[in-house]
């Protein structure tokens, strides 16, 4: 072999280069061991979808966050680090069940989600709103005012709007099924195109 002739040695020369697949295997083992020792606050992966790449994050209790591309996945992870814990690890495999259900939903093969949820990022009235949203059936819609009534505060229409806007689990908790009383879209955390696409998907 040939030897470098000056005093600067390459790290790669001296230590070898791990194959990406090898490091990926080591990282999966780290997640497994970390979880076994209860050291992992959040695991996450991404799921391709017709409304862009979705970030899916879970605590040991359940899915804690679903985020659209437009929210900025990196920013969402930093927010999770602040609000849930810094021990966040990517794990393609650990979130397979929810990823599979999302894929089925977008393929018209699923109308409800059956995964444990961790609603810690929502509290009080907003949490009551989320609880009601899960009762709005696939393909159905309600107005912000109807949701306000259902959540026990008929006059809190604007608060329903902000509860939807801050829904930590869009798609899984169907805030896209809430419209204005006049039938127009209102707002959406993933952008109006995404809301339109989800409603069209469920209407098809």
């Amino acid at each position: 072999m040939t030897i470098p002739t000056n005093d600067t040695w390459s790290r790669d020369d001296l230590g070898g280069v791990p194959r990406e697949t090898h490091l990926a295997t080591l990282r999966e083992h780290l997640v497994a061991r970390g979880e076994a020792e209860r050291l992992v606050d959040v695991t996450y992966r991404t799921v391709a979808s017709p409304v862009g790449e979705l970030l899916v994050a879970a605590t040991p209790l359940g899915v804690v966050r679903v985020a659209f591309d437009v929210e900025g996945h990196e920013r969402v992870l930093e927010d999770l680090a602040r609000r849930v814990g810094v021990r966040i690890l990517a794990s393609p495999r650990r979130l397979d069940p929810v990823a599979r259900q999302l894929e089925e939903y977008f393929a018209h093969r699923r109308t409800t989600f059956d995964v444990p949820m961790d609603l810690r990022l929502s509290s009080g009235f907003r949490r009551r709103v989320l609880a009601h949203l899960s009762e709005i059936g696939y393909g159905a819609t309600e107005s912000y005012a109807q949701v306000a009534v259902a959540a026990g505060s008929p006059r809190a229409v604007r608060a329903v709007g902000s509860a939807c806007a801050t829904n930590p689990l869009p798609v899984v908790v169907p805030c896209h099924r809430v419209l204005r009383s006049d039938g127009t879209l209102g707002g959406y955390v993933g952008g109006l195109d995404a809301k339109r696409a989800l409603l069209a998907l469920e209407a098809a």
Partner: protein
Amino acid sequence: MPADVQMSERPTSHPGAPGRLPGVKPFEQVVADHGGTVWRVCRAVVGPLDADDAWSETFLAALRAYPGLPEGSDVRAWLVTIAHRKAVDIHRARARRAVPVAEVPDHGVVEPASDEHDELLAAVARLPERQRLTVAYHHVAGLPYREVAELVGGTPEAARRAAADGVAALRRALGTTAAARPVVPVPGGAR
């Protein structure tokens, strides 16, 4: 500007983690940024057979301690320090497992060379411990000699000499033909 406005932009201190804004950088970023470097350090320090174990133990310990790491810490140096302790553990465990021999070798496990690159790795593994560690921490991890000395003991100058001796020994072991391959500078590290 009111004092409270300025305060709000600074990390809020809380019990147990002085001065650290709890959670800014997910641990995944630490693994992504330094996983490869730590693996190379482990490989150079404990050899190929135990490198994966050393890597796993290092990152598991780092995961455990990460929430308490003070803000602004040199994360790479922190990880290399953990890796160094794990390497010491592995060497001790290996010594306990080993069948007593008449002559104790002062070098790491040597893997059979299967290609030119492995030949260099095997030569690193054959270096005396102090040279191997200083080469690994300075040339592979990129730590300055001051920090290398904190890990291996002695003065920075002694660490620099040990690393230079190690590099010279590697040259002797492998022959000093002119480098046909371009030399890649150590990024941001070797001083």
